[in-house]
């Protein structure tokens, strides 16, 4: 009989403890980020979609079609077509840079392998599309200018490298 009553009291107390926790939270401020209205802060190292930005110094992209990124990609998401000169020989420059967003696993290996800091993973994170076809992207046609913190960071990266005169450095 005593145990019966003690069980009830103990049970009710533990329930009240739980009610207390939720009540405490009732008076706390919501933790929600009101997403489409308020945008999250994107850290510098964020790995979004791959982009081939335009080098403001040259007015064109920096890719030399060395195929390092193609080899580094663990998922075969990149394909490059080289530019052909007037003599029919391929030139060290990418004419078409195909990037398959559908198979990309955002591992950053292509960016790390690039000796010329030509590619970078951007801040874009809303990557859903309605059409499977649009997942296959051609990056040279975009002529994207990378601005903001990421852009400044990227520019400082390759300017540093060209100033130091070394073609090869890690990026990312």
């Amino acid at each position, binding site marked *: 009989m005593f145990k019966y009553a003690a069980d009830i009291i103990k049970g009710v107390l533990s329930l009240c403890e739980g009610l207390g*926790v*939720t009540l405490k*939270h*009732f008076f*706390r401020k*919501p933790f*929600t980020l*009101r997403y489409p209205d308020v945008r999250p802060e994107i850290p510098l190292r964020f790995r979004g979609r791959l982009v081939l930005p335009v080098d403001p110094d040259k007015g064109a992209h920096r890719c030399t079609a060395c195929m390092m990124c193609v080899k580094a990609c663990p998922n075969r998401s990149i394909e490059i077509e080289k530019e052909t000169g007037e003599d029919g020989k391929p030139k060290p420059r990418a004419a078409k840079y195909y990037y398959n967003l559908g198979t990309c696993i955002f591992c950053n290996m292509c960016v790390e392998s690039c000796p010329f800091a030509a590619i970078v993973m951007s801040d874009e994170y809303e990557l859903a599309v309605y059409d499977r076809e649009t997942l296959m992207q051609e990056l040279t046609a975009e002529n994207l200018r990378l601005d903001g913190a990421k852009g400044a960071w990227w520019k400082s990266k390759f300017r540093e490298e060209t100033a130091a005169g070394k073609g090869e450095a890690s990026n990312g």
Partner: protein
Amino acid sequence: MENGEEMELIRELLYNSGEPLSEFYRWLHKAWAGFSVPPVFLDLMIQFAVAAAVFGFVAVNALWIIYYERKFSAKLQIRIGPNRVGPLGLLQTVADTVKLLIKEDINPSKVDRVVFILAPGIVFLGTFLTMLVIPFGNGLIAADLSIGILYILAVSGLAVIGLLAGGWASNNKYSLMGGMRSAAQIVAYEIPVLVVILGIVMLAGTMKMGGIVEAQAGYRWFVIYQPIAFLIFLIAANAEINRAPFDLPEAESELVSGFITEYSGMKFAFFFLAEYTNLFIVSAVAVTLFLGGWEGPFFPPFVWFIIKTYAVVTVLMWMRWTFPRIRVDHLMQFSWKYLLPIALVNLLVTAIVIKFI
């Protein structure tokens, strides 16, 4: 018995409540006497008007209560809740309802069609009928039956038929299990509720809803005399309307959605409507039985009734969003081993006290 006498009796039964409404009915009848149409048509029209009013109230109230629950739970869970449709998200549930109503109404091919379609109707009917005897204010009651509280117990028992029928007709093992659970649960928890109400009826000396409220006039609310009964009523009634922590019939993580697994569209909306109206009814009955009904200073009776009811609703929601779900055999044990004995002792003590003091 002559026809006129019979009608008079029914009228007496239906309209014999307090002041404003029956005054209005009498005035209508007097006006109606000017035409040469039998008064039975007027009665019918009044019945329809009352039914429509109750239905409208049920629907609007359910919409509001869903919105309120979503906002309240959001607050407990440090988030914002609906805030997109309408100002402060007020129209969110309206939009949801419209969505449910225009959605395709799927009848799976293996269901028992008639029962499957009838089940949500039965569940809703039980809820709707209960609403008729809720005293919103002095005289503001659709039908103040002399057996009001008994009527509530009887009619709310209809719901279990609906739930069981829905679970069985769905031809789904999860649904069947949900239906079975709800039957067992409602039967088990009806008894503590009954015993608790018995104590109140003994105190009030009447089963009429209005009478019970009047018995508590002068702030002699029964919650003061019967605090344990109040708690037992809240818990058992919460279990009877299948809300968390007693939401075993639909137990999402165990039975997918229990008896409503196969339901969609309009039929699902009916279950949903019934569930939230039940929440309101249980709170309203708790207010009527224990918290002095519409009684209160300054505000009109109707406002007081709503305020008190929503206070009880809030407590039930608070419980829902805090506790984990109870297990099915613990649920039975809880009813038979804890609630029922305590309720019986409570009843006995009440009886002795009333008899000798």
